[in-house]
């Protein structure tokens, strides 16, 4: 079963994403800030990371860079809000594979995750 790491500082978003992914055949681990995400990433080597951009302690961009440094092949989808285009561009340049707009659309989440995991 593919393993997904869901990173968001909001517990309810983590919960909803976890449910969605688990219902569709993924195993899910969670992290609530960038720093925890990086540590978890090293620990569990997930097949895909869903990474929120605006987070306390270490933001998504910094976490992305750190993750890509550890594993350049890591697959990372940035979760973002409208109006954060410049951050998303920065993330894509830093190696993010895709972005998803909040509020998350379940179909799009599954399509993006599926596409990247099967790649």
């Amino acid at each position, binding site marked *: 079963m593919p393993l997904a790491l869901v990173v968001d500082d909001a517990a309810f978003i983590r919960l909803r994403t976890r449910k969605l992914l688990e219902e569709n055949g993924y195993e899910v681990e969670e992290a609530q800030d960038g720093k925890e995400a990086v540590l978890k990433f090293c620990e569990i080597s997930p097949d895909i990371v869903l990474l929120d951009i605006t987070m306390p302690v270490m933001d998504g961009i910094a976490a992305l860079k750190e993750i890509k440094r550890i594993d350049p092949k890591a697959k990372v989808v940035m979760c973002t809000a*409208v109006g954060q*285009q*410049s951050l*998303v*561009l920065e993330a*894509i*340049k830093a190696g993010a594979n*895709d*972005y998803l*707009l909040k509020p998350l659309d379940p179909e799009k989440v599954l*399509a*993006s995750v599926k*596409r990247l995991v099967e790649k």
Partner: protein
Amino acid sequence: MVSDKYSFSEEDIKLFLDETLEMLEVLEEEIIKLEEEGEDSELLQDMFRIAHTVKGSAGTIGHIRMSDLAHSMEDVFSRLRDGELLPEQGLVNVILDTLDALRDLAIETTPGFQGEKVDIKPYLERLESATSKAAKASPTSPFYGISVKFYEDTAMPAVRALQVLQVLDELGTVVASQPSADQVTQGEMRGFDFFATFNPAPTVTKEDIVRGINDVPDVDSVDCRPDGDMEKLGLKEDSTTYLPDVEYEDDSSSPGDSRKILGKVSDHAIRVDIAAFDRLVRIASEMTIEQARLVEMQRRLSQTNMFELELVQGLEQVIAQMSRLSTELQEEVMKARMTPLAHLFRRFPRMVRDISSKLGKQVEFIVEGEDTELDRALIDEVADPIIHLLRNSVGHGIESAEDRLKADKPATGRVRLAAGYAEDRVIITVEDDGRGIDPKRVRESAVRRGFITDDMAASLSEEEAIDLLFQPGFSTEIEADDVSGRGVGLDIVRSNIVKLGGTVRVKTSLGEGTAFTISVPLTLAVFRALLVTASGQRFAIPLSGVVEVAQVPVANVKSVGTGEVIVLRGRVLPIFNLNEFAQGNTDIERNNKDDLVMVVVKYEDSRVGIVVDSLLGEQEIVIKSLGVLSRWVTGFLGASVLGDGRIALILDIARVIEKTAGRSRS
């Protein structure tokens, strides 16, 4: 050999030389970048354009040999751009040599030139033979015109376009695109269409391209046709002819923007002589002085003349308006003087490459922050120190590949040159991952040379030992070599930088590397200062060095050994008495006051309390050199003319602290 005649005035030739040498420098930097980073169509297009300009300028001035050689080089660039040639090392070496030859050719135009003239034939032949070797196995790759449509509900089309660009970059070279790569990265994309002219890598098929792009989310349709019609996309090669007497430098008219050197061509910028600029700065600065005098007069007038109240008030308004304008003028002129460090930094990749290949060392050279802007006058001043530090890093810092491998390090050493801002200063770092400096060796060398005694050496901390490197005439390298250069030592580096009001620090870790950090003010000519009085005279203390201003009871002054210290909030500060400095009046207590007014200043890690009579306030001041006087007066950076026409000496904080702290230590 044909004798060349240049039917132009000396001034034309000077401009031609300035401009051409600058362009050759840019080319040199770009070709090295190309060798390091591989094919880059945008870079190649730029190189082609510059070579074209060099050819045109040489032709205009009547320098046929130069224009012929530039023509051949332009040809090579165009074939590199079109993917017919690969930027392999042999070709790059020949191009670098050709650039040197072009430089020599340009110098031939100097009036009264007596040297040997360059024979271009061997260069033409070498270019010819190198290009036949660098030719790609397959003939010219076809161009594709690619048109991508994103779904119209795509939230961030620019992000998707960036992903398409990333896909294309992996499959070949994007010659041009609309919106351009720059626009996409800036998020400037209107609508949902993206076009690109694309030159695929040899084995890449049309299907690969379409599949790759379709893999990007939100792509509605992809159209990929061979023979991309560049003209239709409005991306055809720029065929403007360039005149040698004007340099187009920038297409943005706002000086704050980071500018691209010799980037896109436009007619919004012209080249101005630096001397003219210096005059502008001086005039703008002096205007603010006159301005301050005007305020003073208006104040006096309003006190003495009660009858012309309306007139006085009118004057007040005019002065306020003028003050706004002259401040603005001054700011604009200062801003326009700011030049990106790229102008300077682009010389270095070649230098580092030459030195490392001469020494047989493998060095990766990283340049960062070349967009950082610095006052033009300062750029020239920091050049030599940086060159020296880079030479040191490559020459002494980085070990041979063999030694590095033995020490479990990658064979290729790294030298990093980085610039950036820190408050109102520019920080320049030269860093290597080489062998580091051994404080023990420095101590030994210092003792051997008689700088210090054995006992002194033993009592020095590691930091203090490393600091000995900055002593005049000091060098730990025993053998002379022409790379590190023995003429200028680290002492000159430091004194040059300190003269600019800057600092140099070194951090080293044995076996891991060394980092030199230079910190200089953004500009020299104008700064904010705290005005104070002592012994009836006025002094200015640069605000950048002021930590705080405090009133301290005289009773807190304590005598220790050779000097006086004061206890301020539990911290012991050496005292510098400005009265004593100004007049030889040494006795603080005799000033007949209960409280002392003290300005606490810092330089590097030291702090000193400067005792003054009174504070006059903050002011923007223009520095004037003390000229011959500076030989007799130490401790001052210069002088400034104040609003009322009186002179204030500007304290050199570094010197003051050196004197005071040195005194209390000894």
